[in-house]
């Protein structure tokens, strides 16, 4: 039975038992403190959800975003900032993704890249790909 989730949060479950349904109500930032999913039984201890991206990655992503959108250095760009709020249109988003691909030397699949809308999501996806490369 596959896990279903409606946001692009990546979950690394080492081995999930069968018939486990995890559903998120809205694509919110999931940290270890506000996990809330409905399970019929207790959470198996093997399940590990790594959803917070490392600060250095977020920092690098913000730097690239600022450079791409020509923002001033004191503009606040945190993990939850949406690209659209910073004045980026869809082409800008694709360009930012390509810049990130070049910076971190990774290749993002098109479907995943389409869903990126915040700095946090980009950082998570990057870390996932960097981990997979090693």
């Amino acid at each position, binding site marked *: 039975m596959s896990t279903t989730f409606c946001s692009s949060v990546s979950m690394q479950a080492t081995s999930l038992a069968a018939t486990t349904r995890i559903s998120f109500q809205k694509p919110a930032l999931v940290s270890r403190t506000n996990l809330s999913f409905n399970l019929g039984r207790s959470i198996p201890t093997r399940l590990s959800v790594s959803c917070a991206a490392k600060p250095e990655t977020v920092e690098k992503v913000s730097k690239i975003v600022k450079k791409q959108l020509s923002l001033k250095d004191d503009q606040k760009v945190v993990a939850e900032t949406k690209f659209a709020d910073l004045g980026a249109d869809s*082409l*800008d988003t694709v*360009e930012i993704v390509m810049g990130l*691909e070049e910076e971190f030397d990774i290749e993002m699949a*098109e479907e995943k890249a389409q869903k990126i809308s915040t700095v946090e999501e980009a950082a998570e996806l990057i870390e996932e790909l960097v981990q997979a490369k090693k």
Partner: protein
Amino acid sequence: MAAPFTLRKIGVQPNSANLTEARRRVFDFFRAACRSIPTIMDIYNLQDVVAPSQLRFAISAQIRNNAHVTDPKVIDLLLFKGMEELTDIVDHAKQRHHIIGQYVVGEGLVQNTGSKDQGKSDFLKNFYTSNYF
């Protein structure tokens, strides 16, 4: 190190059915172009002249130039011409001074960085059509 990106030579595709698909094709084209940038810099020895981000900006500027188009068929044709240009560049059918003149240098040699006439002046529009208005 990611495998080097090679441009696949796809023939003419059928017309995109709606604007959404045309958008998707635009982004696919943009991604293919950006992924070919390392190859291009290698072929034409642009390492000291320009940074990859500048080339990305040049490509996106060309796309933004035509951002006001809404007809999917027109978009398809523009993409076809863009793809043709990209293929020529990657095949080394152009020369270094072409690339530098068309995509690197700013206002000096590039003629079409400005947006096309978007209806800013009614006077000019009437003027271009006839003498009497």
